[in-house]
C-alpha cells in the first residue's frame, strides 16, 4: 500500500522517478513505459536483464525496497524547534541583491564594491604608490655579499614538514572568483 502510494506520488515528477528507477525492479515497468514520453536508456537495459533472467529482477542491493536517506540520530526538540520556529531574522536568508559588475561582468552585491575589481585596483594602487615613493621597502644591507660568503654565513635551516606546510600559508582564506553574470540565473528576470 505504502509502496504504491509512493510510486504514485513520485509519478508526477518524471525527473525524480528516472533517478529512482534502477532501484525499483519489482513492480511492472510496462505501465510506466506507456505513459512516459521519452524512454530512458537505463529502462531498456533493465528490461533486457529481466528477460535474460527468466522474468526475475537482477541482483541489486535493496532489492524490492525503497531505501531513503536516514538520519543517524533523532533530532532533539531544541534543534528541531530552533530550525523551524525561530524568528526569521535569525535564519539565513538568500541574497536577492545580486547584480552585474559593470567593470568585470561578474556577479556582485548591489551597493557593495565588487571584490574582484577591488583586489585588482588595490594591487595596482599599491604598485603606483611604490613607484611614487610613498611605500618604501626595507633595503637589505647585505645585497653585495659574495655568494660563497653568503653560503657560509647563512647556511639555511632544516624545516620539518609541518613548518613547510605552514610557510605555504594555505590556512589563509582566499576569496573565490565570482560567477559570470547571466540573466538566465536570475529568479526574477529584470
Amino acid at each position: 500500500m505504502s509502496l504504491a502510494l509512493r510510486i504514485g506520488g513520485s509519478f508526477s515528477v518524471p525527473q525524480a522517478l528516472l533517478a529512482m528507477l534502477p532501484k525499483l525492479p519489482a513492480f511492472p515497468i510496462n505501465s510506466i513505459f506507456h505513459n512516459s514520453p521519452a524512454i530512458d536508456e537505463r529502462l531498456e537495459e533493465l528490461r533486457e536483464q529481466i528477460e535474460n533472467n527468466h522474468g526475475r529482477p537482477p541482483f541489486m542491493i535493496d532489492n524490492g525496497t525503497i531505501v531513503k536517506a536516514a538520519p543517524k540520530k533523532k533530532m532533539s526538540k531544541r534543534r528541531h524547534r530552533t530550525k523551524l520556529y525561530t524568528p526569521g531574522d535569525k535564519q539565513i536568508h538568500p541574497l536577492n541583491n545580486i547584480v552585474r559588475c559593470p567593470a568585470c561582468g561578474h556577479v556582485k552585491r548591489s551597493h557593495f564594491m565588487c571584490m574582484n575589481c577591488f583586489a585588482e585596483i588595490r594591487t595596482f594602487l599599491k604598485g603606483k604608490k611604490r613607484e611614487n615613493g610613498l611605500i618604501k621597502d626595507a633595503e637589505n644591507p647585505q645585497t653585495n655579499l659574495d655568494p660563497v660568503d653568503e653560503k657560509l654565513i647563512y647556511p639555511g635551516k632544516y624545516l620539518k614538514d609541518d613548518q613547510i606546510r605552514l610557510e605555504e600559508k594555505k590556512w589563509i582564506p582566499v576569496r573565490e572568483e565570482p560567477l559570470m553574470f547571466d540573466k538566465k540565473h536570475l529568479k526574477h528576470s529584470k
Partner: protein
Amino acid sequence: MPSLQKFHANVARHIKLMDKNLCANLIRHENIITTRAKAKRAQSKIEKFLADAIRNNKELADKDFEYRLENNDALNFLQPPDRKEVGSKIINELAQRYPGRSSGFTRIIKLEPRLGEDKAPMSVLELVDSDYEIKFWYTAKIVARLELQNIPVDDLTKHNVHKLTKLRNDGEESFRNAVETAKLEFFKFNPETGSFNDPEIEKNLQNKPNMAYHEGPLVGTLLKSKKFGTTPRPTRETVEIPKSPFLS
C-alpha cells in the same frame, strides 16, 4: 551596525584615540580599510577636522609655513607625534586639493564581510579627488571596458564620471589618462596591435551589459520616475512688472 561599546572601561577615551589615529592614517595613506562601525564613527570626526583645518589655513594664507603649522588650532585634534607630518601634508597638499570645499572630503565604500572568523562587515574610507581614489579607478575601469567593447557609456556611469571630475584639479584630463591606464593594466590591451595579451580577458569581454541602458529605449531615463509618467517643466517666461504708481 555593531556597537563598539563592548567593554565599558575607558571606552570614551579609547574611541577618541581610535578616531585620531584613523584620521592621521587616512591622511597619510589616502584610503584605509576598516570595519564598517569604525569607518562610520570616524568619518564625521575627520570631516570636521579637515573642514576646520583648511578654513584656518585659508585665514593664515599670508603667513609662512612654520607659523601656519604652529597657529592652526584645528591641528590640535591630532596626537602630538602626528602633528608635524600630517599637518604639513594638509597645508601643502590638501589645501590645494580642496580650495572650494567646506565638507564632503571623505567617502565610505561598502565591502563584503571579512574572510576571517568574525565575518565583520568591512569598508573603505577614502579621501576624494586623490590619485589613489578607489572609486575613481573603478569608474575608469568601467569606461575602459565599455570603450574596448565599442558600447556607448550609459547614463549612470556618465553621472558618476561627472561627479568624480567636477571639482578635481584637471579632472577631465586625469580621468582620460586613467581610462587609458586602465585599458593597459586591467585588460592587458595592446594599443599597437589592437589585441589583448590574455585570451581569458578576451572571453570575459564578451559578457555584455543590458543594452537597453546604453543604446536602447531606457537611455535618458536615469532621473525619470519609473512609477509615474512625468512631463518636463515648462520654460520660464519673462513677465513684465507694471510700473509702480508710488515711484513718481
